[in-house]
């Protein structure tokens, strides 16, 4: 009998028993079913923030249970909106850090912002305010934000159609700054309504835009506005490469990559594309490029922007703003 008792004890000792587990499986029932209350109100980590100098701001709040929450920051002048969502019982730096970027265009300006914290499953709304001393600065090579008007180094061609309006306008609808490029008109004999040639020489006489040669790291970004009631606008960007660096683009022997954008939305939208993803288009259809077939992002000499529409589709209108090349990723405005 002793033998059995000893063996039993030995087996039990060999394996230390499970103690009561402090962890729980699954979400807390208290979080799912308990009473919701705000234990600590919404607050910003700093009252004023200078995003241009690299400052950030985060928000804090504490609730009685884990809850879904939506944080919405609205620029009181620009109308820019930044949203964050999460599911937790508190807001802290790791879940609510803001570096000045926007979720919905326009871009934030130097302005006061209203911060609202709401809960989809609760009626509570918490409010705080934060002031942007300096808005976020986006790094990259700016083709134009149209704040200084039409660059004299660019060229353009506008058809003589009806209700033509190709010009830099200034109003509160601008997604960045105060100005944008308006493109509108009716041309019933041709797809082309108007075009602008952004030449590298317009930027200090450079033979090519000062971009990285690694086209996988180069992103082209542009904000485009879709006019309510018109979905016929096509915006075509053509990137002409001076591959042999002779100062002249030869369409027969050098690459021209394109990006065609059908403007079928309403309002401002950021379009970003990696340069190496661009293709050569012939009448809107991908085709083999005529040059070396290499995306030479450091040899782009001219960017042509064409506003197109089916001649049978009537009036076409869209707007452009904040055309910028970024590196290592698309623009985060």
């Amino acid at each position, binding site marked *: 009998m002793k033998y059995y008792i000893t063996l*039993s004890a030995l087996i*039990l000792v060999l394996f230390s028993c499970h103690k009561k*587990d402090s962890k*729980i*499986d699954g979400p807390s*029932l208290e979080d799912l079913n308990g009473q919701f209350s705000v234990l600590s109100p919404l607050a910003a980590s700093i009252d004023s923030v200078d995003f241009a100098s690299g400052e950030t701001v985060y928000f804090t709040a504490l609730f009685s249970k884990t809850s879904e929450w939506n944080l919405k920051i609205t620029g009181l002048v620009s109308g820019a909106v930044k949203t964050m969502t999460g599911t937790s019982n508190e807001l802290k730096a790791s879940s609510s850090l803001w570096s000045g970027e926007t979720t919905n265009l326009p871009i934030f300006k130097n302005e006061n912002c209203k911060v609202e914290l709401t809960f989809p499953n609760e009626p509570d709304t918490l409010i705080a305010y934060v002031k942007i001393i300096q808005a976020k600065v986006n790094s990259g090579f700016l083709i134009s934000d149209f704040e200084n008007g039409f660059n004299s180094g660019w060229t353009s061609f506008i058809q003589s159609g009806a209700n033509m309006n190709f010009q830099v306008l200034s109003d509160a609808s601008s997604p960045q700054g105060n100005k944008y490029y308006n493109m509108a008109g009716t041309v019933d004999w041709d797809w082309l309504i108007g075009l602008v040639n952004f030449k590298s020489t317009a930027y200090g006489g450079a033979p090519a835009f000062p971009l990285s040669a690694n086209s996988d790291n180069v992103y082209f970004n542009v904000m485009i506005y879709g006019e309510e009631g018109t979905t016929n606008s096509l915006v075509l960007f053509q990137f002409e490469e001076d591959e042999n660096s002779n100062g002249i683009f030869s369409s027969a022997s050098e690459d021209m990559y394109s990006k065609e954008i059908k403007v079928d939305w309403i309002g401002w939208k950021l379009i970003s594309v990696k340069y190496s993803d661009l293709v050569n288009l012939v009448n809107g259809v991908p085709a083999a490029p005529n040059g070396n077939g290499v995306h030479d992002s450091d040899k782009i000499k001219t960017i042509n922007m064409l506003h197109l529409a089916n001649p049978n589709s009537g009036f076409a209108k869209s707007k452009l703003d904040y055309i910028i090349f970024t590196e290592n990723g698309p623009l985060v405005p």
Partner: protein
Amino acid sequence: MKALLFIILFSLGLSAFSQEGKKVQFVGGARSLISQSDFTSDVSDTVTAPKTTGGYALIDLGFKINPNENTEVLGMIRINNQFGGFYGAGVTFDVRQIHVKGVAGKVLRYQIGNIDYKLTPYTFYNHNPDLLVQSLGINKIKEEVLNYESFYKNNNWRQQGAAADFAIQFPKIIQELKFNGFITRLNPSAPGTVTPGSGLLERLYGGGNVIMKQSKYLTIGVNHVRIFDLLQTANNDNAYRNVVNSISYDLNKDGKKIKLSLDGESGMSKSFSTQNAEGGLSDFFIHVKGQVSFKKCGLKLKMAYMENGADFRSFGAQSKRMDFNQVNSFYDRYTNSQILRPLSYYDLYNDPSLYSSSFSTKIMSFNPSINNVLPYGIATFNRQGFYAGFNYSDPKKIIAADVTFYRLGEIRGQGTTQLRSFSYLTSTVSFNLSNWMHWKKKQVFQLGLAYQKTERSSQFTFEQINLKSLTASLGLELEICPDLYLLGSAFLFTSKGNESMPVRTPEGTIINFNEYLVDGKEINLSSGIKFNFSKEVYVAAVYESNKNNFSAENPYKYNQILLYYIMKF
């Protein structure tokens, strides 16, 4: 030198493969069922056809071929004809089983094709966690049918693959070392789309054990099983692994009056994906059971301690025979709204098509009213506690009783640090009237009982759980004249209370809880007669009535007439 001497087993006993010298034998079975059902619900129902008639005749015809004395080849086809099918319509031909087995070099026993396999209760074992009470009478016929259909025999799982075993005997210290190994295929690969990770990798299940029989007093086994995906078989680099290792032991001392034994199994498991090895689960389990048998009076006492970690995963031992998420095939909808009829407890007896013959590699859903204490059998994860019981069989074979009481609890809380506690009493009492009265004709009564209680107390109402369930079954078989039996069964299932049922991702992570409220009763009464043409051939006519009010708004009842003809050859 003597120590190195070993004797190879299985060089004898091969005559079983070639019975009576026949090279070809026919084996199999046949079954026919005719049913007439009459379904009514208490609410208005002008849509559901209340009466249905159906049935089938099937034959499983197998050819067992022994090309030589060491080899057996079996192929079995099933011809199934649904009643009402003519000229081929409603007739199906299926391969039911196929295997080759034999002995290689008079040393290695092997089987390829369909294999019925098990190792230990924590590694590879087909538990039966839903039919809690033993069956007699009509329910026994139904249970035999569903066991035959899904190859449930001796807690084996039917798999497709290969198995081999051999043994070595020693003259000293160790009597015998036995080696068992198997490899089976759980699912074939599917290439998927060009999207990385969309493919389904080939999933295999393999393992084995080494059992050392030191003497008639001590046997120790080392067991290993693993589920593993084969990389490069599909467009997916994330391979799943579930590894279980255990040690099993059986120590006994057989005296003249008393037999003492101590047996059990302990081990650990690890489950992970190769791309997220750190996010995997690992845990251990302990199961120790001591038994005392009093030979003279036929009483056996047992007491055991078990502790299965919250993250212990062993799908070969934790799979259920049926998925409770599936839809009924018998009166699947009813009422004018044609609501789905949920699976009832008695459907588990009535419908063999609900069962699967292979196991799952996911945590399967279960019905907490039926078995909330050990929903995945004795290998259920997140359980610890004791159980004790007795088994009694009087020397005259008049009364036999088997009673076990479990007192278990959770190790880790679900959604709270408060833990569930479980009580579970299961018992079967058989009374053999013919032995008592010294009658030649067989007269047997059997009562089965399973009572479960789950509790979780908390200061918060939403964390409190109180669920009680009772399953009771009464069966009788009365031989009224030679080979003619009067059969009867009564089945009662009640459940009342609440539970908080976890909602899991396909990977098993709990993401939510659904409140489960139940207050219902199901009663099935049946009677019939059975005539045995021989030990393996019988015909039975059954009438049964079933009432179910688990849905308080839509209770229903049905009556059935069933005619079985069952033959094995």
